[in-house]
């Protein structure tokens, strides 16, 4: 019997309107840009100033060398200026890095917050259909990729492009011919850079896949350990492992080759440019006007040439970052486009519920997760206030589905499900806890303390209410013995299987709900603990409407009514 919240591969076929357009990736990013307008302007200024500052030291050096060529003394002024410009460039550069990182973080935070808001609006079917790990990966990895699109991608690329342009401009002002030469060479070197980067990333990708295969063999081996040992197949397994290991080894060798060769090629190219420049500078006649330069300029240009390659390499990586972020962005956008559930309006209040109505009424309900495949067909029954009923029926008859309808997670295709006369799917989430106490086959632990398991972080539930719930299920002495009592960090090993169920009951009754919904709650318990749970349940059921799914429960609750589904 599947539990109510257990993942369920069936698709929710109900049509959902996508009426909330404010949640979209574009809007999240635009919000940040609007909020941070001043900061982003500041960032622009810092980038510009940093680029300029980095161009100045070679100019000072040019001055000094030219003075020395003329055998003039060098004053403290230029020497200090050289150092100060270097220092300034360094400071601005790191300021730029921090500011860019902050921008990326702002965007990350906003997008994650909006993704969270989107979670609230998703229909229950989404959570049963999609693997939680996939959604978490969207929140974590894809958003990280998105933020790197901005910080390691667009923004740094702008800064690096500015650097390349700055250096080219400076070289043009020193030597027109060399400038033209570099204009031709730069794109070639950039193409080479991209070629190497692509090859390298491809090899790295192959390696990652192979390593994943290699690592995958470990849990497989753990699973098959008894077979391996009893058939004496250790060597065979080692050979299998080696095969995958070899694939990974070879692809890594390939990546390493590109990695090793690239940087030396770039350094050699840069040296070649310097060598050609020096030779051209010695040419006389008409060439002079194109390539001629002073000794100081030659020193300065040598310094500039070495500055052009780092940003060029960075730009290549930044393109790569942008490209790899695209897939993540598409996934985020698809998530934002997920159809929404019909959010109940919060107008319905508990006190306004008519008192004379039955606690639960199903009126000719037809429902299926897929349109063609109905689970419930024209199902009607009624539960009076304070009544105890048990839903019985074979596996797949739709008992748990009825709970889902009662909890308003799904809406019936035909007919109505009403709670105290109000349509179940119109009751807002905030009110549910005062209406329903829901216990499943096993406790679904939340990450937090022992107390958080009961309150589920609901701030409106007081410490007194928690203590009362714990006493009611008889767990007070067990929890008092824990090292930090209620504040003990959650660890499933702290409790036995039966105590976990008692906690689940405490969680359900903490807000004093009117209806208890029990879904096969003793299915996983042995008979000793079962009686403990039944006793707690008896106390918890007082003055409440109780609807349960369980054969065993019915046998021990002879006073209750049996409804066959």
């Amino acid at each position, binding site marked *: 019997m599947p539990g109510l919240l257990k993942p369920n591969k069936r698709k929710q076929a109900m049509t959902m309107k996508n009426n909330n357009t404010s949640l979209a990736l574009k809007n999240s990013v635009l919000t940040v840009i609007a909020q941070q307008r001043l900061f982003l302007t500041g960032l622009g200024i810092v980038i510009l100033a940093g680029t300029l500052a980095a161009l100045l030291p070679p100019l000072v050096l040019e001055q000094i060398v030219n003075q020395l060529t003329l055998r003039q003394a060098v004053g403290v002024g230029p*020497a200090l200026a050289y150092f100060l410009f270097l220092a300034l460039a360094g400071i601005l550069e790191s300021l730029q890095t921090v500011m860019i990182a902050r921008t990326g973080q702002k965007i990350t935070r906003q997008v994650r917050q909006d993704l969270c808001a989107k979670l609230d609006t998703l229909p229950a079917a989404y959570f049963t259909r999609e693997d939680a790990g996939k959604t978490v990966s969207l929140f974590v990895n894809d958003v990280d990729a998105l933020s790197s699109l901005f910080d390691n991608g667009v923004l740094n690329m702008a800064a690096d492009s500015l650097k390349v342009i700055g250096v080219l401009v400076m070289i043009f002002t020193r030597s027109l011919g060399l400038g033209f030469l570099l204009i031709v060479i730069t794109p070639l070197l950039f193409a080479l850079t991209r070629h190497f980067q692509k090859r390298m990333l491809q090899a790295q990708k192959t390696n990652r896949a192979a390593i994943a295969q290699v690592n995958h063999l470990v849990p497989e081996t753990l699973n098959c350990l008894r077979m391996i040992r*009893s058939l004496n197949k250790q060597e065979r397994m080692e050979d299998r492992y080696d095969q995958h290991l070899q694939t990974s080894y070879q692809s890594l060798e390939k990546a390493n080759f590109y990695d*090793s060769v690239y940087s030396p090629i770039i350094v050699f190219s840069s040296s070649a440019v310097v060598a050609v420049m020096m030779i051209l500078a010695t040419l006389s006649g008409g060439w002079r006007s194109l390539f001629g330069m002073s000794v100081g300029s030659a020193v300065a240009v040598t310094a500039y040439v070495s500055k052009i390659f780092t940003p060029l390499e960075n730009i290549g990586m930044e393109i790569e970052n942008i490209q790899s972020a695209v897939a993540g962005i598409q996934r985020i956008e698809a998530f934002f486009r997920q159809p929404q559930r019909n959010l109940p309006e919060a107008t319905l209040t508990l006190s306004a519920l008519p008192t004379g109505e039955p606690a639960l009424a199903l009126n000719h309900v037809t429902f299926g997760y897929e349109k063609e495949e109905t689970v419930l067909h024209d199902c009607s029954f009624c539960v009076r206030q304070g009544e105890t009923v048990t839903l019985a029926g074979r596996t797949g008859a739709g008992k748990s589905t009825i709970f889902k309808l009662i909890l308003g997670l799904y809406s019936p295709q035909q007919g109505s499900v009403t709670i105290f006369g109000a349509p179940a799917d119109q009751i807002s989430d905030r009110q549910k806890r005062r209406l329903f106490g829901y216990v499943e086959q096993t406790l679904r632990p939340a990450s937090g303390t022992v107390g958080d398991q009961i309150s589920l972080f609901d701030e409106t539930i007081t410490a007194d209410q928690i203590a009362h719930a714990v006493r009611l299920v008889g767990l007070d002495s067990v929890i008092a013995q824990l090292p930090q009592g209620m504040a003990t960090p959650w660890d499933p090993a702290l409790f036995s299987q039966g105590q976990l169920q008692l906690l689940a009951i405490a969680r359900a009754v903490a807000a004093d709900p009117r209806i208890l919904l029990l879904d096969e709650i003793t299915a996983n318990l042995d008979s000793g603990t079962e009686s403990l749970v039944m006793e707690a349940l008896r106390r918890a059921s007082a003055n409440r409407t109780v609807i349960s799914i369980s054969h065993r429960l019915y046998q021990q609750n002879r006073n209750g009514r049996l409804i066959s589904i």
Partner: protein
Amino acid sequence: MIRKSNRERRPDRLSTYFYQERHVLAGITLTGILYNAGLTAGPYFEGQLTLCLMAVLAGEKSGIDMIKLAAVYLTVILIVQGARCLKRFGVRRFANDTARSMRRVLYRNLVYQNPAVLSADEAGSLMTKAISDVDACAEGMRKFTTEVFDTGVVMIAYLGMLMAYDLRLTLLACVFAPLAALLAQKLKHPITRSASAYKNSVSQLNTMTLDRVSNALTYRVFGCENQRDQALGDQLAVVEKNAVVSSAWENAMQPLYNIIAMAGVVFVLLRGAQNVLGVGWAAWDLAAFTTYLACFSRLALKSSHAAKLFNAVQKAKVSWQRIQPQLQPVEIPDSTLPPTAGPAELKLEDLSFAYPHQPPLFEHVSFQVHTGQIIGITGPLACGKSTLGRLLLGELPYAGSLRINGLEIAQLNSAQISHLVGYLGHAPQLLSDTIEENIQLGEDLDCAPWLKLTALEEEVAAMPEGLKTQIGAQGTRLSGGQQARLALARTLARPRPVWVLDDPFSAVDPATEDEILRNLRELGKDRIILLISHRLTHFAQFDQVLWLENGTARIADPATMMAENPAYARLVKTQQKKAGDDDEK
């Protein structure tokens, strides 16, 4: 080949891995020294080129001189960069080799583990962790090797060159470099602290995100979704703050070190200029000036990175300490069995067993089984019937005697036992590979007869790829019944004196079970089959039934057991009734 070399040396010592790679490391040392010493050639020749340009402009030299010098310059750079290329590749090959060796040793440690021990002390998860640590460790060793040259050797080379140009100026200008290194060491603490604060807040955020998503419906039913979103929002704010602080510490400090180390450049420019003009501590030409300046700048940059060397050592050490305990030498068991004669025989005498810190599971069990018998073993839940089966695998220590063909199980190693006992547990333990490989496991076996015996023949033939069908992780592309029968085929393909089959038919339908059991009877004529099950449908056909309850064992033929053991009789009858009910449906 590598398997052997690892066997002889000590895989739990770091030196083993360096020793294995001694040829690569020798190459790295050679090219590393050549490259790093040659690094000074760049600034030197660039200075000479400048000097030559000055001479040409002054009309003292011709353009041909410049071409010659440029050619020499490029040749030297080519050699130096070639050495660099080799060094880089060598260092990476070293890391790659080491990671591969470590993975092999770890895997060997894993594959020779006793499954009973492994499940008991969570060694499995430790092992899984260790394997993911291998990359970090190899990367640490690579960085360490790299930094030894790129920071250590290169700094010495630069310093030597600077001192050769002007000793006094070098001492003066380099006063600031140790200052920068000192500051870097001092500020390491807040940097690592802010970085770990950031990492912790991120991992907490990820935990919260996982909790939020996986418990989404629980929170919805309890009306707590908004409150969880708020908590997550608060954590997001903490993460953002920590990220910016950590980035500020990390990025703001590096240029600061650079600036401090570079402060000496003011002296270099002033005194250097005086040197050129002939009024300084040394007599320089313009080339010396530019060379010195370039070398000094690079040295300053390197010295501010010196902390990297220490960090790399630190990181490698930490990851090594994590994996070292898992890198134990493994003794490969010798599978030769002492010779035995006669037909198969299984003999238990006064056998007792208890899990550690628990009351005995069973005590003083004695019985004897002969060739050709099929024994059904059953009893209530948790009576120890599966454990009894596993005792025959030699996984667990026992008291008393347990002999197959006169050989005491406790005195045999796993390889020897594998010749005596064929075992199939309730988990089919299939590999993510083809059907063929799952049966053959590298042996030259014909799969067809075994598939026929387990009634799989037609089903496999119907698959588009037949024997070459990939069955997926843990065999998930097959049905539960197919998985069980494939695992059975794998066991039956290896004739052993004793077969222990623990609940092999739980996922197999009754008709197929009948067919397989008939085949088993035929096959079991010259061996002993122990069939452990809680489904008693076929127990009536077996030679003996062993009933385990409350730590004691009773063995009898099925009819006697039925007559004299009310608990057994009740179980049989309930199952017959249930089967009847099922038939009605």
